[in-house]
């Protein structure tokens, strides 16, 4: 049996620098970092804000959500958080789910669920705020 050969004359480093055939390169990695930087102040703000309203009535909670400052930060948090969550869980699925069919199926279900959850929460904030 003939030994398998590597057909490309380009080095792996050269292919990485040229971003590879898909020109996607570090897109996934980079956006995970960008969203994490955005989430850092937003998370600190959200966790401490929610910690200060454990006994909030419906009137108090909707008034807080509806305030323009809070609504904008909530919308920003939801967008960054669900992007970060979808990308992060995608890595987990790609690492642990075996078989192409199961993997692609899990990824599609994951992206769909993240998109619908983000859309629901965003609509809720907009409905209260507007």
């Amino acid at each position, binding site marked *: 049996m003939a030994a398998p050969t590597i057909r490309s004359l380009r080095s792996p480093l050269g292919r990485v620098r040229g971003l590879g055939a898909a020109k996607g390169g570090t897109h996934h990695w980079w956006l995970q*970092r960008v969203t994490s930087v955005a989430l*850092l102040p937003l998370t600190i703000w959200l*966790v401490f804000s929610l*910690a200060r309203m454990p006994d909030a009535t419906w009137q108090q909670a909707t008034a807080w959500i509806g305030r323009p400052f809070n609504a904008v930060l909530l919308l920003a948090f939801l967008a960054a958080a669900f992007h970060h*969550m979808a990308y992060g*869980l995608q890595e987990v699925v790609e690492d642990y789910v075996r078989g192409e069919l199961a993997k692609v199926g899990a990824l599609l279900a994951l992206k769909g669920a993240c998109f619908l959850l983000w859309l629901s929460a965003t609509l809720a904030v907009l409905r209260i705020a507007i």
Partner: protein
Amino acid sequence: MSKITDAREAVMVGRRSDGTLVRRPLSPHLQAYDMMQMTSALSITHRITGTLWSIGLVFLVWWLVAAASGEASFNGAQWFFGSFFGVVGLMGLTAVAWYHTLAGVRHLYWDSGRGFDLPTTYLTGRAVLIGTAALTALTWLIMLITWI
């Protein structure tokens, strides 16, 4: 060399010095690494807390959608978060959120190319653990002061 059936294995092929192709070992590997070291334990904890925090986001979506749906559904959600399981769950999620946030900052520090020597790795690892405990305690202190 057997046939490759998994796409991931294509990037895991190397050459021996005699030129024959060989499958590289995966790393970090459960059979090759002691997962009870702080470095590897904190690493997998970052992934586990990231996955668990998805549940926290689902809770947030529920809370927001319930608030938008009206007073009755909002009171239902608030009842769950104030129940025994709700409080225990939110306490756990607070710790999970702070751990993932602080370990994420540690990752950003690593991304700058710094902090890879062993003493610094242990120092930042301990800082993440102490910071998680402190921020979790602070969050619940604020919550309890507001509640009472």
